């Protein structure tokens, strides 16, 4: 039997699911014998992407407005696919939430004295810094982010 090189799982858009996804990534990394540095990079990016979706994506666009995704028959979902290639790992994160182009969003660092500093908003910078490549595509259902990590 050929070794597994692709994994897929769907998470609901809830905070506890972020830790569940981190554990899932860790078990895949163990199967692939990936170095700890790479596991950390993947977990940082996944945490920031999922955290953005869970905190800000829970609304759906319509022709007139953003509507909350409160319909139990149409909940916020996050679908994650991990593809292991010889030279890199590709993580594809898809959601059905509000459109948000993470590749174009402003990346913030701490750039002011503490007194003027507004806490928060550092996640985009972390994704850009810890991923080797980042792509965004708007889909019919919502968003698709493709993050690559060099092995």
């Amino acid at each position, binding site marked *: 039997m050929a070794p597994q090189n692709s994994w897929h799982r769907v998470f609901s858009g809830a*905070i*506890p699911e*972020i*830790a569940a996804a*981190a554990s899932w990534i860790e078990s895949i990394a163990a199967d692939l014998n990936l170095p*700890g*540095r790479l596991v*950390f990079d993947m*977990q*940082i990016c996944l*945490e*920031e992407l999922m*955290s953005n979706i*869970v905190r800000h994506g829970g609304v759906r666009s319509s022709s007139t407005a953003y509507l909350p995704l409160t319909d139990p028959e149409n909940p916020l979902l996050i679908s994650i696919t991990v593809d292991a290639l010889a030279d890199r790992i590709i993580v594809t994160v898809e959601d059905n939430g509000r459109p948000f182009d993470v590749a174009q969003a402003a990346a913030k*660092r*701490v*750039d002011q*004295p*503490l*007194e003027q*500093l507004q*806490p*928060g*908003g*550092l*996640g985009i*910078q*972390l994704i850009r*810094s*810890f991923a080797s490549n980042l792509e965004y595509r708007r889909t019919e259902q919502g968003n698709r982010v493709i993050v690559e990590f060099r092995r």
Partner: protein
Amino acid sequence: MKLDVADMENGITKVSLSGRLDIEGALKIDSEFKKIAEEKKNVVVDLSEVTFIASLGIRTLIIGAKATASNGGKMVLLNPQPNVEKVLRTTHVDTVMPIIHDLTAVAAVFGA
């Protein structure tokens, strides 16, 4: 995520964190960490047992550091693990909270 508090010499308070300072960890300690920072002046945060930090965890630290600064004090980060330190330096957190690797240097940082 676990949080322990201990008073050191010279009026310095040591807050030891352990576990993952991810979104769940940050939400768990946010209010207690902020309360300590509001009540104390000089705080050293021992990160040696923190295995992971993300943007929400950094937010917790910055809120605390702002609170100590408004008391005329300072917050210092002690002994982060290499991956955690990389996150802190990537986001330039070290420009507002010194990172140190030697507890004996703490008093000098605070000018105590």
